[in-house]
């Protein structure tokens, strides 16, 4: 049995680790639905005691979604990832490694090479929201009680609340790219001030071009000098190369999966796609590489067999998510497949551009230049380190390449930059490709804003017009 920490400051990460192990335990049994074993209560009774409390917290619909035959393989990869990552993180903390909370548009190879314990701040909210019945609402409520405005981003609020409550480890540093939004910039400033630790900011360039790339590469160098000072050691070329190679392998799998998703019928399931954002924030670790490798093998197997993921007899409708979706309801995407035959092609938060390059690991200079370019291409950073043209072009290209039938956009209520762009995006995609857009209001990680039932109603209405 794995060791689970009972330290308060590991509440959230231990919860994930336990959920990963619990999911692996359940998935290893011949079960396609909790009802096969007499329902959730009956299953609880036969679980080892150390899983029972965690089991009570997990969304029932999510468990049933993961148990569906088509989702089992990716569910196992997901469970493996959060279990191994949790175990690894706790080992790093036990060794006394310093915690750096970073924004999700960063790749973390330099942090790993400098022996930090990196934790993506937004993923703390996102994954907790995705897995548990109570989501990350305790964190959101805690930070709002502190005075943080309720209309700002829940992805920052959940994690900041956990920090306040002492549920996650104390930071040594915060690392923040200044794009895309003021909301996130402010909360990182607040947290650094509150916990009296440095905040390293990577300034965002104004556009996606060579000048911007050079600027970001210089920002990378500046960041490394600051990180070296906190780490008390110099960045070693070979160590950085090792983590970048892992990162390259993961990105290569992502690119291959993206290519396969263009096939009709779509060979990839939708439930894990919001979760893929989590693993993008792990680029540079073996966990991300292993996760995307498992996804690729799952998708490739379906392609080889000529299989899709929607029920037989349904006509496939190909959706692209022009911006966000709700992280709190992963089974929603499985429901879309099963009820409406709607598959998930691409989205803004996991999409790597079709011309994504591998990082050249020849020497320190090429690696830093590559990291600068990758940061420029990271999901969401790419779209907002520019005027609206990059975002629009991406979705015109996606609509064509993936033979998209409709664009769906969950408008995250805190995202001012998106609300400034949303009509331009949908109008241009319609004009260039004829693809219609569904736009609706929601909060990515707080289901109290737009509930799962409401989301399903919105979708039912939309698909009825097809």
């Amino acid at each position, binding site marked *: 049995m794995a060791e689970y920490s009972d330290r308060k400051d590991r509440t959230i990460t231990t919860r994930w680790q336990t959920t990963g192990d619990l999911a692996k335990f359940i998935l290893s049994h011949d079960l396609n639905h909790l009802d096969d074993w007499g329902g959730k209560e009956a299953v609880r009774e036969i679980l080892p005691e150390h899983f029972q409390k965690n089991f009570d917290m997990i969304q029932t619909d999510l468990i049933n979604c993961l148990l569906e035959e088509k989702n089992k393989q990716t569910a196992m990869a997901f469970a493996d990832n959060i279990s191994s990552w949790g175990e690894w993180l706790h080992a790093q903390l036990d060794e006394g490694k310093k915690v750096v909370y970073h924004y999700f548009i960063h790749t973390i190879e330099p942090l790993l090479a400098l022996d930090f314990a990196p934790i993506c701040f937004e993923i703390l909210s996102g994954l907790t929201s995705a897995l548990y019945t109570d989501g990350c609402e305790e964190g959101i409520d805690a930070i709002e009680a502190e005075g943080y405005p309720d209309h700002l981003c829940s992805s920052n609020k959940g994690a900041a609340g956990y920090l306040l409550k002492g549920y996650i480890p104390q930071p040594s540093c915060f690392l923040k790219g200044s794009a895309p939004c003021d909301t996130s910039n402010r909360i990182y400033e607040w947290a650094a001030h509150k916990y009296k630790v440095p905040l390293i900011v990577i300034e965002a360039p104004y556009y996606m071009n060579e000048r911007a790339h050079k600027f970001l590469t210089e920002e990378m160098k500046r960041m490394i000098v600051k990180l070296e000072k906190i780490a008390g050691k110099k960045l070693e070329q070979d160590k950085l190369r090792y983590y970048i190679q892992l990162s390259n392998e993961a990105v290569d799998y992502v690119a291959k999966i993206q290519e396969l998703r263009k096939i009709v019928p779509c060979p990839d399931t939708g439930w894990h796609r919001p979760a893929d954002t989590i693993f993008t924030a792990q680029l540079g670790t073996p966990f991300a590489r292993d996760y995307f490798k498992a996804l690729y093998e799952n998708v490739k197997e379906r392609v080889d067999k000529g299989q899709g993921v929607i029920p037989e007899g349904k006509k496939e409708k190909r959706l692209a998510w022009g911006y966000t979706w709700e992280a709190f309801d992963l089974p929603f995407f499985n429901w879309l497949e099963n009820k409406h035959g709607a598959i998930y092609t691409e989205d803004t938060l996991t999409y790597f551009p079709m011309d994504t390059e591998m990082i050249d690991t020849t020497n320190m200079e090429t690696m830093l230049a590559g990291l600068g370019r990758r940061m420029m291409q990271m999901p969401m950073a790419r779209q907002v380190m520019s005027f609206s043209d990059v975002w629009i072009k991406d979705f015109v290209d996606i609509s064509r390449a993936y033979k998209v039938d409709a664009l769906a956009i969950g408008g995250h209520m805190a995202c001012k930059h998106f609300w400034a762009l949303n009509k331009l995006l949908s109008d241009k995609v319609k004009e260039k490709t004829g693809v*219609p857009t569904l736009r609706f*209001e929601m909060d990515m990680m707080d289901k109290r804003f*737009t509930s799962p039932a409401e989301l399903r109603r919105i979708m*039912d*209405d*939309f*698909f*009825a*017009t097809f």
Partner: protein
Amino acid sequence: MLILGCDVGAIATKTVIFGDTGIVAYDITVNNGNLKKVVEKSVDTAISKAGMLLECIEVKAGTGMGEQYIPFEHTTEGIIKCLAVAVHRIHPHARTIVDMGGLITTVISISEKGKVLEYRTSDKCASGSGFFLKLAAQALELNVEDLGDIIIPCGERAHMGTQCAVFGESEIVSHMNDGEAPEKIVAGINYSLGSSVATMINRLGGIQDIVATGGVAKNKSVLRAIEEILGMEVITLSSIDEQLVGALGAALCAQQRMQQ
């Protein structure tokens, strides 16, 4: 063949019994705390007006926000499509539908064949909805049904600086405290509501004929405001109560489904 269509909306539940000659019977019941009972009552009333039993109705269809409260087996129809199908059947020249319901206002652009081209809903905002009018009527101690009868020249209506239902209520109280005549406040409210709906219509191109449905479409003052702002006529359907269009659409969608 008889078809039952039931639209469980935010403020009222509407049921129609549709037969070969058109609507045979209908009911509109205002929702209260127990939606399941309201739905049962509305259905019971409609079928008893039609003089038959539920078992005699071959096809049953439901739509609206509370459709899951319909207690018998039925097909589920999307409200947008229901509105498009029903309006197209009654008024084939319609190209824009403005459904002003209890909680949500929806503007739908449809093709010559009645297919939905584009639609827009007010979503989280209650401005432009019956709920906004209900709040306003409560603040003014008037009946919501009476608000539409007040039509006064534009220069005389009270200015409403907000389209938000919540802030609107406090603005009404401020006008009352300033001694503004209730009819001028009502005229201001209706204009404000019409203005937010007109903006939605404009965003979808405002193509004529524009047909208004939903409970708020019974408010002539709001319709007049929309027409004034758009410079276009807004039509209501004389052959059917404005609130019943969604329920009729559910019945027609179910009929289409059977014919396919």
